[in-house]
């Protein structure tokens, strides 16, 4: 049997049940929608960037536990980060989830739990949705 408890780690279920950073920002803000057409998962990210730093971030949308927990963790992780730090974190998380790199797992905190997705190839897209959405959102920063 596949290691179900590695996918649904308590940290993941906790973020799913009690999402952090859920909601919307008042303008001015950057809004980016991410959608997975095969399963219907949807993440809408609101960002406020000031002086090259992510000052505030919120998400809303609907989807499975993995997609929503990943978005919840994202809001905690990128809050206050510079754009360069956010870009680096995106690459680190995508690499971790896809099993390409182990990265510096210890520095990732709750995000390290997303590594459990690796053994469930059909769920990788769920975990990466929020991070690809952030990647798109950052392209809007002039």
């Amino acid at each position: 049997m596949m290691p179900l408890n590695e996918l649904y780690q308590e940290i993941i279920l906790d973020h799913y049940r009690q999402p952090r950073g859920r909601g919307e920002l008042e303008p001015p803000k950057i809004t980016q929608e991410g959608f997975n057409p095969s399963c219907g998962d949807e993440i809408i990210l609101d960002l406020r960037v000031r002086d090259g730093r992510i000052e505030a971030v919120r998400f809303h949308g609907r989807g499975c536990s993995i997609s929503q927990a990943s978005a919840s963790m994202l809001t905690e992780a990128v809050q206050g980060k510079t754009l360069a730090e956010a870009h680096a974190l995106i690459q680190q998380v995508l690499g971790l989830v896809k099993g390409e790199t182990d990265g510096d797992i210890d520095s990732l905190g709750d995000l390290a739990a997303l590594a459990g997705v690796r053994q469930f190839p059909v769920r990788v897209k769920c975990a990466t949705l929020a991070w690809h959405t952030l990647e798109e959102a950052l392209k809007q920063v002039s």
Partner: protein
Amino acid sequence: MTTTFRIDAGEIRRQFPFFQPHPEMRSVVYLDNAATTQKPYAVIEAVSNFWAHHNANVHRGGHGAGARASEMYEAARTRVAQFLNAREPAEIVFTRGTTEAINLVASSWGEAFIRAGDEIIVTEMEHHANLLPWMRLAEKQGAQLKVWRITDDGRLNLDELDRLLTERTRLVAVSHISNVLGTVNPVGEICRRAHAAGALCLVDAAQSVAHMPVDVQAIDCDFLAFSGHKAYGPTGIGVLYARRALLEATPPYHVGGGMVQTVRWERLVWAEPPAKFEAGTPPIGEAIGLHAALDFIDSIGREAIEQYEHELTQYALSRLQEVPDLRLYGPAPDRASIFAFTLGDIHPHDIATVLDTRDVAIRSGLHCAHPLGERLGGSTARASLAIYNDAQHIDALIDALHETRRVFGKTRA
């Protein structure tokens, strides 16, 4: 479980390599048959035999192998015509699948015969294959797309059709069985009412041909489409049935080799149907595989299949009711063996993953029917049965659903 079915699903599974032990694959309870069915040895061997011993192009070669390949390909067409009770093999066009068959009708027939202001009726329960071609056609031609809404229990109300039909209606496009709700639509009556209003009727039979008798003359449809791979046959082969007069009036779809009579710089004469719609080298081995698949279906008998799957459906309905918080979509008890459901607030994708770890294969998501998904409130999990499934498979599904609730903390440990 004491009900005895006349069909021995275990015996049928023995005809499928997928259900035999394999060193690298876990044995699974396969409940994703609305996506694709498994293939019996007979189909795999028919395809393999063609590639191994009879491979040649059709309608071209100046040699015996080419003649034999042409014979086998045309025999498949004759078999499909017989299977659907078409009037003649020329009413059968081979395509890559249901999607291509409907695109063919929308592009070739639609662009020739649908004018600005004309109306096309589609139902709210259509798969994208029988929806997007009509949305695009309507946009291109300036025609109006009218949506036939479903009832809350997932049916089509015929009075609603009467309200939608006008003298400008050119086509009603409807699925025989919904790939999400399992609704079996009264396509014969729908065609009758469409015809009475002067419209044509296209039936998407992708979910029905392997599960019940389908007779195009009894339904009296103008077009009907299905895919080989959902009927125990190969991928890459599908069928468009159309009345001969319609095929003759309809311009070609793709143009190229094999679909033309005369090619001069100043003049083109298309071949007669069905060749007119089969440009390029067709999926020959796949058509031969489809022939074997239809033989497999008829070796069991479509009435027997329909009855067996109906009984299995009743068992599934009763057992699904036992699962707390499970909400089943679509009508009951009179329905096909496709079950879309949600389980409280557990996301369908999570349900599918937990079931996967219990070796129960289902699908989750929007099932290529986004407008219907929107109506139902989002994603659903879907289990869909075929002739090799049995009551033990339903039991495994139910056990795994209870397990899913445990994983998500919906029961005390």
